[in-house]
């Protein structure tokens, strides 16, 4: 069941490649806007790089959340899935995993190139990739709660950002903090461990909260 959901969502995403690419380009464009707004001063850019990349990743992964349940909700698939004997928890987890593969992994892969634009050193780039690798699944998991809560609402798109962005703050702090620490030459272990802890916590609780929210929306 879990594998089926993941494969199905991946197939659907593959058939709508443009959606996936637009999230990725959104990420690239937002990051590239900052030097234009702030000026080409390389030392300053290097200082703000972790924050900029991370905030852009937050916004990009929030944009992709709208797709998570909306189509399945509209054509009734979600209702069918909720009637299967398998727990809704697994369905949510599978959909989140597919979403992360489609929208999170490309961000992680492109981020070293964006980091180069900001003059980050090789080891900082590595930490940037590592922190995004740990952090973007948390964003997708926590975001799934927001996506489930706003399912079928008129103001869904804007509302989801109000609900989800405050909850993203710890991820932002530890993710950008790890890269900051590596630029400053101090230990990054603490931030990365805390990111890992957030990942484990959200892996356990977020699908549960999201499936509770889905049941409310499906009533």
């Amino acid at each position, binding site marked *: 069941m879990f594998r089926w959901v993941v494969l199905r969502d991946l197939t659907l995403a593959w058939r709508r490649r443009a959606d996936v690419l637009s999230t990725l380009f959104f990420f690239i464009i937002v990051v590239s806007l900052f030097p234009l707004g702030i000026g080409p001063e390389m030392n300053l850019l290097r200082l703000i790089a972790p924050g900029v990349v991370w905030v852009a990743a937050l916004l990009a992964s929030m944009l992709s959340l709208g797709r998570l349940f909306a189509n399945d909700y509209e054509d009734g698939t979600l209702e069918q899935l909720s009637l299967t004997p398998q727990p809704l928890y697994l369905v949510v987890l599978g959909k989140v995993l597919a979403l992360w593969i489609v929208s999170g992994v490309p961000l992680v892969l492109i981020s070293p190139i964006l980091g180069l634009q900001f003059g980050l050193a090789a080891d900082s780039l590595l930490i940037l990739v590592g922190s995004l690798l740990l952090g973007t699944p948390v964003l997708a998991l926590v975001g799934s*709660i927001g996506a489930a*809560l*706003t399912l079928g*609402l*008129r*103001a*869904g798109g804007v*509302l989801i950002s*109000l*609900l989800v*962005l*405050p*909850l993203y*703050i*710890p991820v932002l*702090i*530890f993710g950008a*903090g790890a890269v*900051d*620490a590596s630029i400053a030459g101090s230990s990054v272990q603490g931030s990365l461990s*805390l990111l890992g802890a*957030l990942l484990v916590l959200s892996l356990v*609780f977020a699908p549960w*909260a999201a499936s*509770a*929210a889905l049941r*409310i*929306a499906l*009533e």
Partner: protein
Amino acid sequence: MNLYKYASPVNFYPLAGKLIPWFSIPAAILFVLGLYIGFFIAPTDFQQGDAYRIIFIHVPAAWMGMFLYVLMAIYAAVGWAFNARLASMMASSISITGAMFTFLSLVTGSLWGKPTWGTWWVWDARLTSTLILLFLYIGFISLQAAIDDPRRADRAGAVLAIVGVINVPIIYFSVQWWNTLHQGATIRILGKPTIAAPMLTAMLVMLAACWLYSVAVVLIRLRCIILEREQTAALASEATA
């Protein structure tokens, strides 16, 4: 007397009406008393002068903002778990007052910050987490406002409030850690001086006043919510009849 009778919004409505003066009148008296002690009896602080007197509203407001969020989440969870409409209505009623107090504590804090620290805003851990608390309130209120069906609004709000309550300590500690990482503000909000007795009295009296005020206002708003919802229910049953 059967207390469970009052779990029904329709039965609670007249009771709430009778309870309100028992809270609003003491609240008014304590506000006057607390402000009198705060402004005329409490001594002037030797470091901050008279500017410190804003704590008599600032500190109770900040406390109320935090307590009310937890209280709101408890009511929302009870309303969701036991399908108790009144508890859910309490949660939505509390959310507005809680957001108001959080906002008030941010405003008074920045008014206090200008003369004492020389700046309206610092990215201090406590200030930042209060700001995030306000965002959480706004999320709860706007989610409930966006859902037309009141029962779905109650339950969705409950999920969000519970997720929020779990996140509050995580956010608080992450913000604190972030602040020390950025070597942060060197100003402490209260350098933990031994606080003079009249100051403490004034603050506690104001806190009690804020509590009583909250109860009164929450009950008034609860009555409005009951009227709104039960009225539509009545209209619906009238239409089907």
